[in-house]
C-alpha cells in the first residue's frame, strides 16, 4: 500500500498473494473450458479479498473492511454463482473457440505482464517502494490480460469474464496504490459490476434464443 509502512509479514503475504493472482489469470489463459474460467475468476477474487482484508487489518481502516467483505460477497459469491447457474441452465458443454492457440496466448500474456511492469515502473518508481511496484504492475497486467481474453475468445461468457478481470485489475490497483480512495467509488464500481453482468447475461440469453448459441463468431453481419 502506497504511503503506509507495514510490518514484514504483510509484505511477504502481499507478494505471495499477487503472485497467485497473476497465476490465476494465466490459468484462465491456458484453458478451453468455460466452467474452468469461472472457477479461476472466483479464486482470483477470493485472493483479492484476502489481500484487501490483510491490508485493512494492518492499516485499521474501516473502509477497507467494508470493501473487502463486499468483494467477497459480490465478486467471489454472487457473480460466479450467476454465471455457473447460467451454464447449467443452458447446458453449455462447448469448448471455447480460440483465435489464438494456448501456447501463443501464454506467451502473449507474459509479454503483456512485462509491458505492464515497465509502464508502472516508469510511472510510479520515483516515489514508491518495490513491493507496491510489483503489486500494481500485476494489477495492470490483469487489465491487459482481460483485454487480451476479450479479443481472443469467441463466446459471450468469456467476454463477460474478460471485463470482470479488467475490473479486478482496476480494483487491485486502487487498493494497492490509492488506499485512501473514497469508499463511494468502490461501492458504485461493485454496483456497476452487478448491473453490467446482469445486462450482458440477459443480452446473451436473447442471443442464445435467436442464434442458438453463445458463440459470437456469427456476429458478422454489420459491417461498413
Amino acid at each position, binding site marked *: 500500500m502506497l504511503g503506509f509502512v507495514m510490518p514484514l509479514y504483510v509484505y511477504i503475504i502481499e507478494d505471495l498473494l499477487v503472485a497467485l493472482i497473476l497465476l490465476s489469470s494465466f490459468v484462465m489463459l491456458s484453458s478451453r473450458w468455460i466452467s474452468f474460467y469461472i472457477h479461476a475468476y472466483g479464486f482470483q477474487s477470493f485472493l483479492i479479498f484476502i489481500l484487501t482484508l490483510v491490508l485493512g487489518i494492518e492499516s485499521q481502516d474501516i473502509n477497507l473492511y467494508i470493501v473487502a467483505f463486499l468483494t467477497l460477497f459480490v465478486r467471489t459469491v454472487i457473480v460466479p454463482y450467476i454465471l455457473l447457474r447460467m451454464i447449467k441452465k443452458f447446458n453449455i458443454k462447448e469448448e471455447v473457440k480460440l483465435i489464438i492457440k494456448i501456447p501463443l496466448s501464454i506467451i502473449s500474456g507474459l509479454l503483456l505482464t512485462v509491458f505492464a511492469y515497465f509502464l508502472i515502473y516508469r510511472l510510479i518508481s520515483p516515489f514508491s517502494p518495490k513491493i507496491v511496484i510489483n503489486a500494481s504492475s500485476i494489477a495492470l497486467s490483469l487489465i491487459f490480460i482481460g483485454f487480451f481474453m476479450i479479443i481472443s475468445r469467441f463466446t459471450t461468457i468469456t467476454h463477460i469474464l474478460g471485463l470482470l478481470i479488467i475490473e479486478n485489475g482496476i480494483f487491485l490497483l486502487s487498493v494497492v496504490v490509492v488506499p485512501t480512495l473514497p469508499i463511494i467509488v468502490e461501492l458504485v464500481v461493485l454496483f*456497476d459490476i452487478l*448491473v453490467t453482468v446482469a445486462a450482458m447475461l440477459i443480452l446473451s440469453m436473447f442471443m442464445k434464443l435467436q442464434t442458438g448459441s453463445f458463440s459470437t463468431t456469427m456476429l458478422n453481419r454489420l459491417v461498413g
Partner: protein
Amino acid sequence: MKIFIIVFLIIPLFASLISFIAKNKRFAEYLTLFSSFLNLLGAFLILYLILNFKTIFLFNGAIAIDKFSAYIILLTAIVYFLSSMYGISYMRLALEDEKMTDGEFFRYYLFFNLFALTMFIAPMINNMAVYLIDIELTTIASSFLVISEVTEKSIEAAWKYILIVSAGISLALLGTILFYLSGNIPGSAHAVSSLDWTYMRLNAGYLNENILRFAFVLIVIGLGTKAAIAPMHTWAPDAYSEAPSPVSAMLSASLENVAIYGIIRYFGITGAGIGFGYPETILIIAGIFSIFIGIMGIIYQRGTKRLLAYSSIEHMGIITVGFGLGGVFGTFGALLQMLGHTLAKSSMFFGAGNFLHKFKTKDIRKIKGVFYLMPVTAFLFSLGSASLIGIPPSVLFISEFSIILQSLKDGYYWITVLLTVFLAAAFISLLSKTGSMVFGKPDDNFNCEKGDFPPFSYVPMLLPLAASVILGFYIPAGLHDLLSGIIDIIR
C-alpha cells in the same frame, strides 16, 4: 432548490415506471411526452437560475450544477422532448407494419425514460468516478433500447455496443484512479484527496505531471469510446442503425454530448495542472482523425442511418478539434457546434425513420423519389441535411466558421487546410447521398400510398430545424452570455 432538482429527476423515473406498469399504449405515449415537456421546462428553469445566481451545490457538494452542466442538461432535454414526440408516430407505425409485440413496446418506454434519466444525472454529478458509473448505466439502458425489436442484427449491435463501451469505461475508470493518485503521492506537500471536479480544478497545480499525462490519454480513450471518437467508434454505426429512430437520435445527439462533457472536464483539470499545450494536442489529433474516418464512412455508405452515424462521428471530431484549438473562438465554436449538431442530427434521424417505414429498407440505393411520395418529410430532410453540413442560415455554419477562424488565429494553417478540405468533402458526399434519396423517381413497381405520415412524424423535424435557422441569423444575448460563461469555466 433541492426539492426542484429531485422533482426534475423523479419525473422521467415516474414516467418510465408508470408507463410500464399501466400497460396502456396511448397513456404511455402521452405520459412520456408530458414528462419530457416538463423536463424541458425544468432545464430552462435551471438555466435561468444558473444565469442569475451562482453554481448550485446540493447534498454536501455531491451535485454541482454550473453553466456547462446546465447547457448539457438543456441539450439532453431538447432531444428527449423531440424524441418522445417522434416516438409516438414511430412506435405506432412499428406496431402496425413491423412485428413489434406489445411487450417490446412497453419495454421500449420503460428504458427510454430511464435512459433520459441517466443522461440528466450525468452532468449534475460532481464526483468523477460516479459520473463514469452513470455513463455505464446509460450504456446499459440504451443497449436494451437497441434491441427494442429483437432480431439477430440488433442483438449483434447491442452486444458490440455494451462490450466495447464497458471496456472503454473501465479504461476511463483506470484513468480516474490515476488522477486521484497524481494528487495523493506520499511525501507531496499538499494532498488533493477528493475526486470532485470543483475541488480538483481548484487544486490542479498540486497534481503530479507525469501521471496526469498518462491519465488524460486514458480518459480520452475511455470516454472517447462513448463519444464515438475514431478509432474507438466501431460500435456507433451498428447501434445507431439498428436502434429505433428516436433512440438513434438520443444516442447520437445527446449521449455523445454527455460524454464530450466529461472529456472537457478532465481537459480543464489537466490543462490547469500541466498547461493546455499537451491536452490540446491530443484532442486535435483525435478530432482530425475522427473527421477523416467519419468522411470515409460517409463516402462508402449504403445505409441511411449508418450514413448519419458516420456524420455524427465527423461532427464529434469537429467539436473535439474546436475544444482542442481552445481560445475564445474555438471553444465557442465547439459549444455552438454541440447545439447545432443536436438540432440538425435529431431531425435527420427522424426523417430516416420515416423513410424506413415508407420504403421498408435502410438501403440508400433503394430509396428514391421521396419528394414525390412524402413531400413534407422530404422538404424537411433536405433542409436538415443542408443545415447539417453547415450551409449559411444554419447555426452550424457559424460554429464551423469560428473554429476555422481560431485555427487561423493560432497559426495552425495545416489544421485550417485539413478542416476546409474535409468539410468540403462532407458537403459533397452527404449532399449527393441525400439528394439521390430525396429526388429522382420512385420505381414503377413500387406501390405504396402517397402522402406523409400523421403530424407527429414531421413536427419534431420542423421544430429543431426552425430553431437552427433562427439561431443562424441571430444568437440571443442569453445564449451568448451562457457560452462565454462556459468558456471561462473550461479554461
